């Protein structure tokens, strides 16, 4: 499987091509890494009430935002998230 060449995080460009992977894992199907992520995301909410889930989602966004760090990238993501509806 070929991994798309993305601009490295921090270069001020929001990555919008498929970018999920896990170190040490070999993929034979291109949908697998994204599906691995999505399953983990939904599993994170197992047995939570809707209110608890909302709070967990907010914490998750904050953790990921700090990890990304580049505020220009975050602003771009916020814009696209708001516009997609």
């Amino acid at each position: 499987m070929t991994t798309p060449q993305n601009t490295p995080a921090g270069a001020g460009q929001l990555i919008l091509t498929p970018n999920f992977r896990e170190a040490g894992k070999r993929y034979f199907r291109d949908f697998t890494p994204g599906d691995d992520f999505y399953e983990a995301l939904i599993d994170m909410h197992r047995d939570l009430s809707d209110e608890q889930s909302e709070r967990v989602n907010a914490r998750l966004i904050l953790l990921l935002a700090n990890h990304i760090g580049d505020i220009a990238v975050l602003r771009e993501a916020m814009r696209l998230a708001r516009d997609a509806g």
Partner: protein
Amino acid sequence: MGAYVSPTYPYRSPEDLRSSPPQRRPLIVVGAGPVGLAAAIDARQHGLDVLLFDDDKTVSVGSRAVCYAKRALEVLDRLGVGEAPCAKGVSWNVGRTFVEEEEVYQFNLVPEPGHKRPGMINLQQYYLEEMMIARALELGADVRWQHKVISVQPQDGFTRLTVETPDGSFDIEADWLIVADGARSPIRRQLGLDIEGRIFMDRFLIADVIMKADFPAERWFWFDPPFHPGQSVLLHKQSDNVWRIDFQLGWDADPEEEKKPEKIIPRVKAMLGDAREFELEWASIYTFQCRRMKDFRHGRILFVGDAAHQVSPFGARGANSGFQDTDDLLWKLALVMKGQAPERLLDTYSADRTYAADENLMNSTRSTDFITPKSRTSRTFRNAVLDLARHHPFARKLVNSGRLSVPSFLVGSALNTPDTDAFAGDMVPGAPMDDAPVQAGGQDGWLLDQLGNRFQCLLFVDPATGVSDAQRTALAELSNGPIPVSPLLVCPAPLAAGDLPVLVDTQGLVARRYDARPGTTYLARPDQHVAARWRALDAAAVRAAVARATCNA
């Protein structure tokens, strides 16, 4: 247009099977669905006597399993029954996913040329069964209709069965028993064997309609279409102008009510959106489970197909994985029955196919969770993926309307010999082998048609230097071993190699897909999986890999 008329297979009195004490047969298969038939055909190709019992006298009622994947077609090719279903079925590679009316995601199951079989064919199950029954009979399988196995008693080294027929019941014994009696598996239940997993709280309606339509031969999947708001719909083309439409109904739907034509016909009309005429051929309301048996082998009883594992239908991983079960099982069973391998080789059937079943369960469960979210948060994320998928490629990849059946890479199989040389690409030990165009005997053909039913040693050769004396000696020694390994040379140009068979890699695709150069050697299992590979041929290494792949090490 016109509805299918199912054949009736003749019942024969079991007089010749009845005796006291009961007869002992080497191999009995229970269930003449596609997977039981594949087992019987494969057994005959391995020269095994096989008796096949089925409690009915005809093929499946309704179209049932419709999508047969590339790997299943390759297995059917190896079983000598690949042409007819491909000729009758509808080939397709492209799937489209729509949200409301907008296309958000598209996949192509075979994105590159140079494979004999397409990603999928759609064919009503009854047609495939008819073709497979003809093949089983042609090979001399002893198929007995209206023979219902009502009791199975494991004994020391064999199994006793009680069989009910219109002429009364009788006992018979089998050295080996293959159970292919379907999802409800009366034999599994009678033996009290566990099958564990999840039930999904949703109901679906299948409507097979006969109509003239010029929709392309593609899989179309809608989330929340205007003609069936809030639910999903799937459209597939089958042969004879039959179209499969699958409507998600929700858990609260009343199955008895929804089954009525007066309820179904308006749903179909709303979908077609015009006054076109159609006829309802078959309808069924279903729910499903995702579960498997803990072990597919219980002594001398081997479970295959739906009897061993069940998945949601999104992904066509039911019948297709059943074919891969018997593909894995029969060569192993043949070696054990012929005394060429120890019984524990059959434990690797269970280990490898439960691994594959887990992969199928995982993928079909993920699809089901995406299609029918179980909580408000899950639905919110699903809808957010669909929103973003309209604009962004990363989100398109997350849209999961079914990950269609592809074979497992059995990378953890105990039968693999780990690589000692460096290779690129996916043809790792345990990989299902990739097809490629070749010329054999001056004729255009396909690599996979040259593989299977025995161990084979593929040696890639440089046309300028040909086969060395040492290589020739090694290949001769391997073909005379206790478990013979047939030689097969692969060369980019025609080559005179005496009695050694040569495949011409006309487009260089074999070498490319297997990352091969002159000297590269692959050991292929009888089920077209890679057992081992090296950069140079060494008879001792190949012998050791054969021993490992047959539990003789």
